């Protein structure tokens, strides 16, 4: 979980997700990264940091897996049923 409904910088969102990612990686499970593109308070809530963190995380994962000779696979929950 990225805890991105709070007003935190994009780097903090990125680190929250990567912490869960490394935990799941160590257990050998796939990762479900939960972020927020809206808020329950009102329309137009500022979630610019989620957009920035998403861009960085996808680049990070693609580089990380390709360096290890594997392909990172972005899936939806349909792939787990």
């Amino acid at each position: 979980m990225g805890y991105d409904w709070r007003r935190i910088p994009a780097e903090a969102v990125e680190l929250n997700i990567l912490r869960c990612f490394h935990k799941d990686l160590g257990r050998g499970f796939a990762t479900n990264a939960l972020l927020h593109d809206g808020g329950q308070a009102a329309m137009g809530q500022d979630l610019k940091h989620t957009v920035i963190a998403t861009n960085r995380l996808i680049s990070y994962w693609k580089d990380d897996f390709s360096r290890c000779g594997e392909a990172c696979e972005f899936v939806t929950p349909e792939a787990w049923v």
Partner: protein
Amino acid sequence: MLSVSTVAVTPPKYRKACTVQLSSVSTSCRWVNSTYCIRNQPSVSANPYSRPPPQLPKCPSPSAPVRPAPSRSARMPAPDPRSAPHAPPFSLVCNSRHSRACASPRTTGWHYARPAPSAPATTPARDRSSSSSAAARTPWRFPQVLPYPSCGLVTTRKPTQIALTYDDGPNDPYTFRLLEVLAEHEVRATFFYDWSLRSPAPRDRSRRSPAAGHLISNHTMTHPLLLVRPSGIVRQQLRDCNAALEDVLDAPVRWFCPLHGGRRPDVLRAVRDLGLTPVTWECDGV
């Protein structure tokens, strides 16, 4: 006499403390010398009872190739991976590139890394002939969806798979900026939409998401705290959101993300009765 000479070589800054220690501790000569040595080092604690820092192995240079941890010695051969199917296929290696990427004070430079792919192990002929021994060696697989209703979806044991899920949308304009980022990287994601669908602009623009391959799912109509709501209201919220989504998307909705992680058993039972599958952020089933 020995004690006096020790105090004389002590720096003036610590002379008072050393003198007190000399008078109170009988074996003070060695103690003062060690204290003096410790206090001359600026970054080490002055506590004489503190242990020295552990000697960690040094990180290799960034140009050095990342290699898996060495296998066990000949006296203890490497285990067959089929005999331990739940052991993670990763070894802990040092990778300084990770530490630069994470840029965290907690980062130590040690991360899980994948070993190089190896040839599949061949089964001996005598084992292939015995069906009972082959069945005994078949690894037990964790069920993907547990049969009892208090659990959500369970991920596979494929660490290369990553699912990006977004809650509480659509939110103009950030949802649509996000769609542009995902399209740029050619990545599919899952969006759990809620009450914002009542607004006309997101309704019209949400029709674009399935065309891009994204999955849109249920997140209730008004985002209530389902843990403390009666079952009738929970079912009404789920039904209304399903109806709104199916009206916009013209497709059935199959997934649900519990709000605030509320996984009360009767909430999840209502979710399953409506044909939805709960998805949480801790999908590892533990």
